[in-house]
């Protein structure tokens, strides 16, 4: 019980620090909020362009594809607000050697680096994405059933685990190669493909986006669940895939710590 309380307290302190940091510079706070909404609007443009000329793409109608985009944006908001800032913080820590201080604290280092920073204004992004989802279902003229909604929520959890695990893998690489700015750009660019339903991709790309970089598990499957189109085999595959990625990420992280060389004084 005590460790659990310790970690809950730690999470609260880390979040409080991030919030204090965020409001320290007021102007920046409002600017970031406005930018978040702007980028959400930009995300919708490619979809609007494609569907302006046809009714459906790879079996997905416009409102259905909008569910995927909405889902993708929700996930992206969580990624940008809750995962990326922390992991950028680690990458910088590795390069400057300030990760030393994290490793010297009596708490799990992976937990500490994963909760180091949050960007609270991403909540706007998150709410905007929920609005997109709501609009999509309004266009479809129906709401997900309770069962579909619960599966969707569970898959949201799986998607978060997957995203987070992939990021941890990227960060683990930084222990060896030190500078990974470009690697994180690559990650974000690939993640961007998640705005399209997986059926849009063919052949090798489809396999890669299902197994290696499981975008399908992150956005298409949960959207399908909400639409009541997901088979239970696929749901199971997503759950297993999420756990497998988490286990691999943890293992790689542990090994990577051994390779940490710190920066010289």
């Amino acid at each position, binding site marked *: 019980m005590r460790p659990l309380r*310790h970690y809950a*307290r*730690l999470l*609260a*302190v*880390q979040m409080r*620090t991030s919030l*204090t*940091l965020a409001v*320290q*510079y007021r102007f920046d706070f409002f600017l970031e909020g406005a930018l978040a909404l702007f980028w959400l609007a930009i995300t919708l443009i490619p979809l609007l362009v494609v569907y302006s000329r046809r009714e459906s793409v790879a079996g997905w109608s416009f409102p259905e594809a909008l569910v995927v985009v909405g889902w993708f944006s929700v996930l992206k908001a969580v990624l940008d607000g809750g995962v990326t800032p922390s992991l950028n913080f680690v990458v910088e820590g590795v390069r*400057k*050697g*300030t990760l*030393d*201080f994290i*490793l*010297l*604290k*009596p*708490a799990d*280092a992976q937990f*500490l680096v994963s909760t180091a920073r949050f960007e609270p204004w991403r909540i706007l992004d998150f709410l905007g994405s929920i609005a997109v989802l709501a609009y999509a279902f309004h266009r479809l003229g129906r709401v997900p059933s309770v069962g579909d909604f619960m599966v969707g929520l569970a898959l949201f959890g799986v998607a978060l685990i997957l995203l987070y695990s992939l990021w941890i893998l990227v960060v683990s690489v930084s222990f060896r190669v030190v500078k990974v700015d470009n690697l994180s750009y690559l990650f974000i660019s690939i993640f961007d493909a998640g705005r399209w339903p997986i059926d849009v991709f063919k052949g090798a790309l489809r396999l890669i986006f299902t197994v290696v970089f499981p975008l399908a598990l992150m956005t298409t499957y949960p959207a399908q669940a909400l639409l009541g189109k997901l088979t239970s085999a696929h749901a199971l595959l997503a759950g297993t895939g999420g756990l497998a990625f988490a286990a691999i990420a943890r293992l790689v992280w542990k090994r990577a710590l*051994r390779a*940490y*060389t*710190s*920066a*010289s*004084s």
Partner: protein
Amino acid sequence: MIRARKLCKTYRVHRRPPGLLAALRSVIRRRYEEVRALVDVSFDIAPGERVGFLGPNGAGKTTALKILSGLLYPTSGSVTVGDFVPQERRTEFLHMITLVMGQKQQLLWDLPPAETFAMNRALFDLPRREADATQQELVDLLEIGPLIGKPTRQLSLGERMKCELVAALLHRPKVLFLDEPTIGLDVSMQARVRDFIRRYNESTGASVLLTSHYMEDVAALCPRVIVIDKGHLIYDGDLRTLARRIRPEKRITMHFSSVPAPGDLDRLGNCVARSELQATLAVPAAQVTEAVRAALSRLPISDISVEDPPLEEIMQEFLDGQSANGGARSA
């Protein structure tokens, strides 16, 4: 408390000559070189002991501290601190130690130091009342009460270092690893930080391991020194003994009321510094009394003092001597 046996640490470093062409070539084919940061280093440190790590830049001092604090894995050899292997990073071990680095800071740059203290209190799971009492005590000792509410980025280097010390000692560690804690500080601030470290050591019985470029720090704080050069331990023992062995001489500094006759000075000993109304002689320790008596009777002395030669010089001579003939010594 600390036990290191045959510690070795080898780094693989990417090397290339300067210039664009060499840089391009190194993109395709990288050449690596092995750098031996520590070679068979062994020592023991008792509870409550204050030990200074000395050596030129790149000697391996920081590497040793980082291995002892569990940040780096030794390539070979073993180390224990208390009953723990540092690299296992056990909670009890991390509660027992602290590492302060003069060149890096744990304080949150945009927030006041008090926020970092609160964070560390949560990290070390310290009871509120106990942590507050410790914080107050440290803040009083270092006289930084008004500073801990100001954003860190607005503090001076010395003020930041004092706050770093509070952040690092909030959990009352039993072993202090201090890597150049006084770097960049002015002389009076250095003295205060030194004084604080000594007081902490005396009141808590904590072991202190210190590296510093300022010999003054080491001389004032550490009765025992470990000298490392090019990864090898070349001396482990008392600093004064080392000084006497390397330079068995004293410095006599004299101020004159009028210019002394040429020749009178030279007869007393080897003159190492000279201006019109001042001179410094190097005299073998055994002949100091004789030399002072002679000086007082023959020269127009207005002031006279006898001191040990500067430690920086001694250390330089020691290191030069070592690189000339190899070999390791110990007390």
